[in-house]
């Protein structure tokens, strides 16, 4: 069914495609995130904080702290995002980390909950 296909797509999206040269560099796993990574919590259908400012080169780590799965989705066409970067669905206590290499504003949503909107500003 189509829903199953969608789920498969979510899983299969190429997180490994990003490299250090990209503005948004997806880190391969949680252990790759440095201890000083900026933290964003996901709970009660919200990103918290919704708006953070970091310096270029900073790693941001998102942690889903509720049972409802969420992800981080930088949608192509938004400011400074040339192609879709759709993070995996995070279950409770799972994390997702990104290094921001270039200054700019990066809007993102949660794919199945598009009303969950937030942004990262990179100086």
């Amino acid at each position, binding site marked *: *069914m*189509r829903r199953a296909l969608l789920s498969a797509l979510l899983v299969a999206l190429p997180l490994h495609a990003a490299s250090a040269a990209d503005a948004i560099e997806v880190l391969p796993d949680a252990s790759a995130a440095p201890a000083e990574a900026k933290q964003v919590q996901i709970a009660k259908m919200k990103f918290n904080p919704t708006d953070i400012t970091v310096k270029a080169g900073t790693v941001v780590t998102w942690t889903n702290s509720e049972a409802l799965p969420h992800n981080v989705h930088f*949608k192509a066409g938004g400011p400074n995002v040339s192609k879709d970067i759709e993070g995996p669905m995070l279950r409770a206590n799972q994390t997702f980390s990104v290094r921001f290499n270039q200054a700019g504003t990066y809007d993102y*949503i949660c*794919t199945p909950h*598009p*009303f969950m*909107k937030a942004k990262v500003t990179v100086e």
Partner: protein
Amino acid sequence: MTHAHGRSTGLPISRATMAGAATALALLLSATALAQPAGGGRIGGQSQPPAGQELPVDDTSVEQAPAPNARRIYVSDPAHFAVLTQLFTIDGDKGKLLGMSDTGFVPNTVVASDGSFFGTASTVWSRLGHGKRTDYIEILDARTHNPIIDIELPKDPRFLVGTYPMMTTLTPDNKSLLFYQFSPSPAVGLVSLTDKKLVKMMDVPDCYHIFPSDNNNFFMHCRDGSMLKVTFKADGSAERKKTQVFHKEDEYLYNTPAYSAKAGRIVWPTYTGKTFQVDVTGNEAKFMPAFEAFSDEEKAQGWAPGGWQVVAYHRESDRVFLLADQRAKWTHKSPSRFVFVFEGKTGKRLNKIDLGHETDSIAVSQDKTPQLYALSSAQKTLFIHDAESGKEVSKVDRLGHSPLVINTSDM
């Protein structure tokens, strides 16, 4: 088209499988007749012309549906999320199937406020279930069933969801079509049927459903329990304003409210039967007192709404029809056997109709002596009742795989 007989001289479109079958059958019969030996014998009870005379030729034609009236019904069969689906055109007066139209994946149906046309927002793929996706609007003439407008929607903006009627609507002047986009962000697409193009995707907050209150205003229902008013111009530029929150977070409103554009009335039941009503006349949302469809005692006995289109509203008599039954909690999409009738203004109960069959969706015609339409997905049958007495007057069966949605026009 609706029906075709015999050797039709060029079917304008290849959409009606019944028409195709009728044509094939007629051709077969003609061929059989031609194959009989000449000589005046009686075959199949019919006289044959004497040798040397030509056989009569069937006068063939493509029929049109009669002029639409308030009892013209469109039943959509989303066919359990199949990619190819059908829309059935039915004459409520005669309880007769008039024709069929092919539709794509989870289509949304619209009907013009004067009944002159109907259409769908639909989705197809180049390889049936995969390949290039195309979202489009198709408008068909209500008499010929020929497509008169076809508009492709760029970037596949349709919200693919089990069909909620108020996710795609027409403005009262029938010149604009509005449809909902869920992902990547909530938006309403403004389609000009006059210019035959998508004008703009209008960004909206976290709100759902579209209730046009006039040709430049529509309302939506938001996650926080408020309504949103959107005022838009022909170029798609829009202003947005939220109302007060009108229901609590644990009051769950159905996905299929009833809306009378001519009355400016939204009727919106919850899973327990508490029924909210919003008056949007004058492009202002006025919240009427909500009424409880069921007493505490009835609720304790399990009475609650259930089905797909669970509510209908008759404008002239100001009556609310609610599909309900005794059920367990969280079975709100299961069919029901009863319709409860209420006075809209007061919420006073007027009647309880025993439909006599499991019903998924209801609707009413908007004439003076309305018909109550009760659609059974499992039986694939539309039952037509007198809305006053509740008596079943006719039915139309064999409506696809899993018919679910009823559209009529308040003309």
